[in-house]
């Protein structure tokens, strides 16, 4: 499945401290002509690859700012441009939930959207509206959006961005956040350091590992209660149940599967690459989707998967979990694609300091071509 991280706008009504998109201050909204052209190109791509599907993720900025009319127009365009392939396009959406209304929800449903991905923050002053990051106003609107979505039969899942404040009491935070949405536990992601201006909240690799380690014993004891809490469930599935299903950053197979398309038609490897402004490919106006998905510059990702097990990740028993980590992180760290991600540090610490001693399960997921377990 090809994953398109589609940002028709990067405008946002919120002003979250850890958001790379907000800092771009972009106000462009993709016009209908370009939107039409994109779905035309998706159609061509899907016709050429009849077994392929596209996960079309409406991302932002805040997608709700596009308004219901935009999504209704998109629906019409999809059916005009993709008469025989529209059913192989799965629409997904990421929203902060704070500007949703019934018309937008109706438009989402028309596109076949059944779940909304979102984020939530426990501590004040991190996610918020306006210059002062008014968290209470944000949270109140968030719950209004949640209520509206739930009344319409839509489910929601969320990401929590682990920051310095999260380290105060990881377990309390875990319980609060898992109580918030019993249907879908959050994904605990490490805060990214986009421009180092707000680095008082950025955590280092050790801190992230310690944060997860503080929760792990509790999660293991109650994993039936919190089956979807990530990354714990991902580690458990990968190591114990041998179903390796880590996030995209740790799978090493994003080469020709992801693409970011921005409001002006610019493209990049994925959403984060678009946010960072790296691993850019030709604008969608200037190339086919196939040319972008199989662009030669993407080869570095495949090459890295071959060279890392011979070099920096040689004989690493955690290879099968992290595959050298995300190429973007490696590039941001060393300005070269071929290295392992600096996130290797937290993965190692989490496994060796917490996972193995607590579970008694040794991780031996070597690269099968370079070393047998």
């Amino acid at each position, binding site marked *: 499945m090809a994953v398109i991280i589609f940002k028709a706008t990067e405008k946002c009504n919120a002003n979250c401290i850890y958001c790379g998109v907000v800092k771009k201050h972009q106000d462009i909204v993709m016009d209908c002509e370009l939107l039409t052209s994109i779905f035309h190109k998706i159609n061509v791509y899907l016709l050429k690859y009849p077994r392929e599907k596209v996960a079309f993720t409406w991302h932002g900025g805040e997608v709700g700012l596009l308004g219901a009319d935009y999504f209704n127009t998109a629906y019409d365009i999809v059916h005009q441009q993709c008469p025989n392939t529209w059913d192989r396009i799965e629409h997904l959406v990421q929203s902060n939930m704070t500007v949703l209304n019934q018309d937008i929800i109706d438009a989402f449903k028309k596109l076949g959207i059944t779940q909304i991905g979102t984020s939530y923050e*426990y501590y004040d002053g991190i996610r918020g509206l306006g210059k002062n990051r008014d968290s*209470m106003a944000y*949270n*109140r609107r968030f*719950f209004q959006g*949640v*209520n509206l979505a739930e*009344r319409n039969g839509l489910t929601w899942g969320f990401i929590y961005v682990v920051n310095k404040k999260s380290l105060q009491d990881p377990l*309390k935070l875990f*319980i*609060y956040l898992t*109580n*918030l949405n*019993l*249907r879908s536990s959050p994904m605990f992601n490490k805060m990214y350091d986009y421009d180092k201006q707000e680095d008082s909240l950025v955590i280092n690799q050790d801190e992230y590992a310690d944060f997860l380690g503080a929760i792990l014993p509790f999660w293991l004891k109650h994993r*039936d*209660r919190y089956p979807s809490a990530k990354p714990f469930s991902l580690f458990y599935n990968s190591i114990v149940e041998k179903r390796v299903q880590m996030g995209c950053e740790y799978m090493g197979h994003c080469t020709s599967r992801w693409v970011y398309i921005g409001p002006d038609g610019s493209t990049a490897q994925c959403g984060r690459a678009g946010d960072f402004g790296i691993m850019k490919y030709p604008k969608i106006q200037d190339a086919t989707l196939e040319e972008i998905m199989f662009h030669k510059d993407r080869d570095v990702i495949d090459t890295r998967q071959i060279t890392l097990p011979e070099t920096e990740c040689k004989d690493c028993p955690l290879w099968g979990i992290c595959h050298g980590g995300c190429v973007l992180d490696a590039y941001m760290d060393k300005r070269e694609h071929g290295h392992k991600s600096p996130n290797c540090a937290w993965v190692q610490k989490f496994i060796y300091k917490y996972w193995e001693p607590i579970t008694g399960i040794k991780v031996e997921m070597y690269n099968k071509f370079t070393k047998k377990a």
Partner: protein
Amino acid sequence: MKNNRQTLVTRFEEKLIAKLENENIIITTDNFNFINKYYDVVNKQNKLNNITVYYDGALTSIRFLETWKHIPLVLYVNSIGSHRMFFHLMPILRQMNVRIFLSNQTPQNFVDLQIMASLGICSGIYFSTTKMDWNKFADLQTYAIYSKNKHAAVEPFNFILSNYKRESRLDFNTVYYNDPQKFLHLNAEGQIALNADDLKAGKFVLENISLIDSLPDNQDYIKETTKWQQHFLDKTHCAECLAWRICLGKFVETIDDQKSCANTMTELLDGVEHHQQRLQNQQNNQNQQKNRR
């Protein structure tokens, strides 16, 4: 009966009952004299769920009639009364379709609930005071969940055991009809309130039952059914409590330094999950045995 509709809770008003049709109805009263009449009238064109009697006295001071045997009764009483009298009542109580609620006001009531349950009488605790004896509550809970001796259901533990799903919040106020998604409260004129307190305060959300389809969009209804979110906005202890999913902040006023409510309710949650796991294991074993055959 009307599917997916709330059960209507009301005092007996013949004119009102006559206007209702195919509704599931609970009659509340403090008077034992007309129980048979209520049963007959309500069942003419509606279905009587039960008659709930709020009685300011002891169980043993109630004169149970043979003619009530087929009538579903729920009794809220202050206490059992004398044990000697209670045991005299047992033969007729055993023939009744009755559930008896005792208040949390006295420690003895917790013990008496256990006695009733062990004698096969369905029972339950109701919360008339915020001064809770958490040790007694925990004892009753342990008995209700873990006792291997055969006993009748004790509420709200039985409700929680039967309805808990890990992916959804469980509101045991349902046991006390205070859940507007399941129960609506009507006054004599048919005006609708969301719970017993609102009914008492004259706070109505709909003028009559014909407007019920508009309820999901009613702002007061939305506010009431989403009021749990305030705990998250305010970051109360309850939002950070392990037992949130089965308690929803009901004991917020009782929170003490030892967090007794959290400890007790968390034990309850563990017990419920253990119970469900045991049932699941039994089911799996039965399926395996079937497959082997």
